[in-house]
């Protein structure tokens, strides 16, 4: 209702003619609605209510069970969809606000005209921003324009979650998809800003291997631990240490994405581990100073820091903990408040916070003792256990922690050690224990002290890499890009991530990781003692294993898919969302895996990928997100257009990708499915052979003898059948009465629904 064409062109610098402006610059919620609806026609929302009630307004609680409507008229499906939108908005806001702060901070430092230069290897600097908005960001100020667009979108999205707004679940889903799109956009802006503003490496693939694991932290030095996602303050610590020749003297380490980002600034920084190791590491007392910034930070850090004898500096308006704001005070005074008055403080100036952290750590570390508890003492503590299992009942990962404690008390170490590997150190077990057994502390005794390596984040995929792999990806001869992203709410520990990545890297898929997943992957060694990061090459190539970086770097994974369309296939990208997404959906065999997704951010990211046409596999916990996008391969609408003839296909076309967002229960099944979800309708016979070869082989390995029961759906002609299984498959096909069919030329959804996109663009 509110689009003004002139203003739009002004915002995206329409006069800047790097490409003609496509049909959807600065899209509003309703501008890409038809695309969403087309996706949702095949990939229908699946709802798994986490609660039967709605408690959103003072008419409630309303019972929405099985067809009942609330006092506002809403039904359970629509309510779930509303909830999901709200959650997506939280995720989008987390990244968007993070981007806004970083960009404003860097503009204050460098000026808004500071040039964005991602190095020799990256010309298409911002594929998402270009495609969604139609803007080519050249200076930091342009990134602020991006965030302003995101902010504008957000208010409308949140508004529609208000009681008495949107009334249809499909429209809520369109809004969630829009939120997801904005989320990836904000992430791209945020990561580009920090790359530019902090000179993070971007045009090299073999970024340094950094140390990983709590065992890697040198306890004898002052230790500063950063937790969160905004590296501004901890980067300032690094600067201070470097400028004062103290880098050798102080250990800087991080948990969660801040860890990624600080290692992009200095490869001497160390990574403690992911989200799920937070409480464990704080409690073990090794950190002298804890800096919290924002996102995925335990809300009880003040209490836990006190308990561990660590100093605490909060640095974000997102997390103020009720602490005194000392931003305006002199550094000396603040250091004194912390070291002498034992105060926890809030410092909203990252530079100041960074310096204070360093000075406090150096001041207090010598006076602190740091030891892991030993097994004997731990067993003594465990002896109190009465085996009541109240702790187990409270465990969000369904661990039999009580049994492990009890057996540990009896001298059995392995079981507890296994439990710890699957544990999020959330602390819920402990607080239920009637015997007050310090379960997390006891686990210190059985936690491995090994150290690992992780490749530090590399940022965007290089244009030249895209040119090299574009063709094999689109033809299908590189069987797929598998991206392991998201948080550490793993059903069965870090191990599974490493195993899955290894399986696909060995099979010459392109394997990408980010965030907590990149850390988890590094926490496992093979027989030769190598982590996956040491075992495989770091390029965006067949068999490569890449760490793009922190959460916000997930944008580069979508960016790579976009670049395949835009750079390799030369599709016009500017403000041409639908064509590019359509291309990705039908021709780029990428699959995201968020095996341990817990956060609203991960939900938004996944939803954003879905709108680009990338399927996402989620671990079992993610059923609690309440919504998936599933098709039914034999029932749903697989009708598609042949882009060459611009006619609808008049026969069944393979259901590829089969789902857009699905929860899979076990790693084994997930591996098989991921291979399948990399199949695209555009695959050449050779490409399809390769993909089916992996699909069949993995099926046999993990699902037993025989063939997947949907194999025939993916075989167009005998030339699609992998050599290795040729005879066996052909026999099978005959038995079930399979018939050959046409391959689609330039498969596309454009023009199968009302759209302003131009089908000529996809050719």
């Amino acid at each position: 209702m509110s689009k003004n064409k002139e203003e739009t062109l002004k915002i995206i610098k329409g006069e800047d003619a790097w490409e003609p402006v496509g049909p959807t610059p600065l899209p509003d919620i309703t501008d890409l609605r038809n695309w969403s609806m087309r996706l949702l026609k095949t990939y229908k929302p699946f709802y798994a209510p986490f609660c039967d009630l709605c408690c959103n307004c003072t008419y409630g609680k309303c019972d929405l069970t099985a067809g009942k409507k609330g006092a506002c008229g809403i039904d359970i499906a629509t309510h779930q969809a509303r909830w999901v939108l709200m959650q997506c908005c939280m995720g989008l806001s987390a990244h968007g606000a993070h981007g806004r702060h970083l960009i404003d901070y860097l503009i204050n430092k460098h000026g808004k005209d500071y040039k964005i230069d991602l190095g020799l290897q990256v010309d298409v600097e911002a594929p998402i921003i270009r495609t969604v908005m139609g803007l080519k960001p050249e200076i930091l100020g342009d990134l602020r324009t991006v965030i302003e667009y995101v902010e504008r979108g957000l208010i409308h999205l949140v508004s529609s979650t208000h009681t008495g707004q949107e009334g249809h679940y499909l429209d809520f889903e369109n809004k969630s998809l829009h939120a997801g799109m904005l989320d990836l956009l904000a992430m791209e802006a945020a990561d580009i800003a920090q790359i530019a503003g902090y000179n993070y490496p971007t045009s090299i693939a073999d970024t340094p291997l950094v140390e990983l694991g709590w065992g890697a932290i040198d306890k004898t030095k002052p230790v500063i631990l950063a937790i969160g996602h905004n590296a501004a303050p901890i980067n300032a610590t690094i600067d201070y240490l470097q400028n004062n020749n103290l880098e050798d003297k102080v250990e800087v380490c991080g948990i969660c994405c801040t860890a990624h980002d600080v290692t992009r600034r200095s490869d001497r920084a160390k990574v403690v581990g992911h989200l799920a190791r937070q409480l464990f590491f704080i409690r073990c007392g090794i950190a002298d100073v804890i800096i919290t910034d924002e996102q995925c930070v335990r809300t009880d850090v003040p209490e836990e820091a006190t308990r561990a004898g660590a100093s605490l500096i909060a640095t974000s308006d997102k997390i103020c903990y009720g602490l005194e704001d000392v931003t305006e005070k002199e550094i000396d005074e603040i250091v004194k408040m912390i070291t002498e008055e034992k105060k926890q403080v809030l410092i909203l100036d990252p530079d100041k916070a960074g310096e204070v952290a360093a000075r406090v750590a150096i001041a207090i570390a010598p006076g602190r003792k740091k030891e892991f508890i030993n097994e004997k003492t731990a067993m003594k503590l465990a002896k109190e256990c009465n085996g009541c299992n109240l702790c187990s009942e409270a465990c969000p990962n369904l661990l039999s922690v009580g049994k492990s404690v009890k057996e540990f008390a009896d001298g059995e170490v392995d079981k507890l050690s296994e439990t710890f590997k699957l544990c999020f150190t959330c602390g819920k077990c402990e607080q239920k224990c009637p015997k007050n057994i310090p379960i997390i502390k006891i686990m210190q005794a059985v936690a491995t002290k090994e150290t690992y390596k992780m490749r530090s984040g590399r940022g965007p995929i290089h244009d030249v890499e895209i040119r090299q792999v574009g063709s094999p990806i689109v033809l299908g001869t590189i069987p797929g890009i598998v991206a392991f992203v998201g948080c550490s709410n793993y059903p069965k520990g870090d191990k599974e991530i490493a195993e899955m990545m290894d399986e696909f890297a060995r099979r010459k898929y392109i394997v990408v990781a980010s965030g907590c997943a990149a850390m988890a992957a590094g926490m496992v060694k093979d027989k030769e003692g190598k982590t996956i990061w040491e075992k495989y090459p770091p390029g965006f190539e067949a068999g490569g294993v890449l760490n793009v970086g922190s959460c916000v770097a997930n944008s580069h994974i979508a960016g790579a898919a976009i670049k395949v369309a835009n750079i390799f296939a030369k599709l016009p990208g500017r403000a041409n969302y639908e064509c590019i997404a359509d291309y990705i959906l039908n021709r780029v065999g990428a699959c995201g895996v968020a095996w341990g997704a817990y956060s609203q951010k991960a939900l938004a990211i996944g939803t954003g990928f879905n709108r680009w046409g990338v399927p996402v596999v989620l671990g079992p916990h993610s059923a609690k997100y309440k919504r998936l996008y599933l098709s039914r391969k034999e029932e749903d609408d697989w009708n598609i257009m042949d882009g060459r003839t611009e006619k609808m296909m008049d026969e069944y076309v393979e259901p590829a990708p089969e789902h857009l967002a699905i929860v899979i229960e076990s790693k084994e099944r997930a591996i098989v499915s991921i291979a399948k979800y990399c199949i695209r309708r555009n695959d050449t016979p050779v490409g399809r052979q390769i993909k089916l070869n992996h699909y069949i082989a993995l099926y046999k390995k993990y699902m037993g003898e025989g063939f997947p029961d949907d194999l025939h759906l993916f075989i167009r002609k005998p030339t699609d059948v992998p050599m290795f299984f040729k005879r066996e498959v052909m026999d099978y096909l005959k038995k079930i009465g399979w018939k050959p069919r046409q391959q689609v030329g330039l498969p596309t959804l454009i023009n199968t629904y009302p759209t302003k996109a131009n089908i000529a663009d996809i050719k």
Partner: protein
Amino acid sequence: MKPYWDVNVLTGTKTAKIVEDPVQWASIIKKSIRPLYILGPDTVDRNIGDKLFLEYCLDVAKAGNLPICATAHVRKKMSEMGVETDSAYDIIEIINHLKDPEWQGVRKEGNHDLIMFTGVRCDLAERGLATLKHFAPHLKTMALCRFSHPNADFALPVIRKDTKWQEYFDGLVANLIN
């Protein structure tokens, strides 16, 4: 009735009928016309006593002549044991199908009127049961799971002891055969 796992505590109004007696459990199954037995990966990842969990389940399936849907990687163990499964959807996929009253079921004879499952990861099972509770009024659900499931139509009480659990299986098999 609180289920064993806190994360599965019901926030709702419609909660499972707890069926303590395997006789009654068996009779509910027997009254159904097109039952389906869904087996999850816990059945192959755990033992009860010395016997593989799956074996108990297969005994039940056999006794009740129940078609099986093997989820996750259960099919592999079954095929190693030489047992064929009627279908092998993953848990979310089978639930997605069950929602549709027009779906023809794993035996292409029409959608199922009774769904029983065992060995699905408890938090995931509970979500799937919630889906069916809201969106599949045309069928009933039974959670043959020792940790209890409030979102099912029929559930077991929490069964803490392995021996009790074995007894329940034995009772069920006996009654299904009769």
